[in-house]
């Protein structure tokens, strides 16, 4: 018996309403998408859901006390809490350049955590 699951695509801000059709644990069809990203999202969301993660790390001697950071690609959703714990351990020293690697291959996901901006040193 095929099962239908309704989803909202988060690939872009349009937020298309998708329907994933599942049979024997496999996605056999995705309906309601407006672009190819929707198909990929529908399949991934039912099998291996991933999310972008953005947070901050502490900065020594920075223009601000915190540096915003983000995962360069989406990471597995069940790992988000552990990934946040890993990132929280990090403290960097200003100056930092945008897109420099703050955590390499976070939690073995193959995804780097990058600086979201330049952080100049305190003036």
């Amino acid at each position, binding site marked *: 018996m095929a099962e239908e699951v309704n*989803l*909202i*695509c*988060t690939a*872009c*801000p349009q*937020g298309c*309403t998708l329907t994933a059709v599942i049979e024997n644990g496999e996605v056999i069809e995705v309906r309601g998408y407006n672009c190819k990203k929707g198909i990929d999202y529908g399949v991934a969301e039912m099998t291996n859901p991933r*999310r*972008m993660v*953005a*947070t*901050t790390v*502490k900065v020594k001697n920075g*223009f*601000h*006390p*915190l540096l*915003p950071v*983000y995962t360069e690609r989406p990471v597995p*959703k069940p790992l*988000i809490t552990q990934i*946040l714990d890993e990132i929280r351990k990090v403290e960097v020293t200003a100056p930092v350049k*945008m*897109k420099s690697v703050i955590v390499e291959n976070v939690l073995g996901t193959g995804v780097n955590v990058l600086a*979201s*901006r*330049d952080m100049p040193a305190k003036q």
Partner: protein
Amino acid sequence: MALKNIYDVVVVGSGPGGVAAAIEAKKNGADDVLIIERDYELGGILVQCIHNGFGLELLKEDLPGPAYAQHFIEEMLSLGVEALLNTMVLDITPNRHLFVSSKEHGYVEIEARAIVLAMGCRERTRPQIRIPGMRPNGVFTAGTAQRWVNVEGYMPAKDVVILGSGDIGMIMARRLTFEGAKVERVLEIQSYLSGLSRNLVQCLQDYNIPLQLNHTVKRIMGKNRVEAVEAVQVDEKWNFIPGTEEIIPCDTLLLSVGLIPENELSRKAGVKLDPITGGPYVDETFQTNVPGIFAAGNVVHVYDLVDWVSEAGFEAGKRAAQYAISLRNAEARYIPLKAGKNVRYVVPHKLDKSSLAQEDIRLQMRVTRPIEQPVWIEVHDGENLITRKAEKYVRPGEMVTVVLKTKNYSDVSKANSLTIDINPR
């Protein structure tokens, strides 16, 4: 940085709309472009929007807010736009004079051939939605909490209720969860979500944060700090439904109940506002009813996507540059007529050089003192004599006339000014 007295384009606000406007103004031929920011760094609200989702349309990349801002700020500065930080625009006049104040420059008047208003929005606050109850600490707008958590490093909450399902509120629900707070729920007075559906999924549902539609806060409780809020269900006219009240213990109430375009300056400049958007009435070039004053971004109406704000800024900046250039060209056509030796004044005071190509222009003047002997009335551009006329004498009581002929056009067209001297022959 030394300030100029006059700029082609002055942009007020360095959020995404303002930065985009400055970029396109410069690319479309505006010479001097100045962007004014009251904060101590450029970027506007994007500085605190550390979540992803910016740039998917314009840059084809999923960037956090600060990275999106930095991308365009770098482009703007590399084009030679001047940036003025820590500076407040106090007033703008309909003829495009800005009065600004800063620690570095003091109180300064700056003239602009065109202005782009890009002041963005402010959040609606508790008094604007009139929530009854106590007035303890712990009631914040979502954006205020966002600034503290993401930029300044303060954690303002342990146990949170969020009123309003706007995007900032949902994003802060996830953010505060990341930082260890418990978000009890999100209440929305309307029967539908007010933010983007994707944020319902990735900010609330992913973290099992309940959303209650048709619900609002009836009362805030707590003496020094928020201790609880009383939630209630509402009918379609937003009346409380008796018997549906629920006390939710919490130490913080975040408000995500809408944004209001910030148009105090626009009003001072004589810009007409639309009561529905709260922003200026604009034409397809984003020009307001005041000629030469343009507006772009959330100051006009609240956008869903920063990419669209940038696009509005691009258009407004380009049109502002075109306006400034046409004004500059019109200014350049005119040259002043100066009263020189023994001349008290000349009428006209200035002339449009191109009109001399069509017809003769009569210059009339009075002398300062009588000269009872033959004189030359000499019109020159500082170096070359353009024309002269002989008179037997000149007296202050008798007006003197000299005519510029169309044959003088080629000489006059090269001049920056004309001076008239009266010398004895």
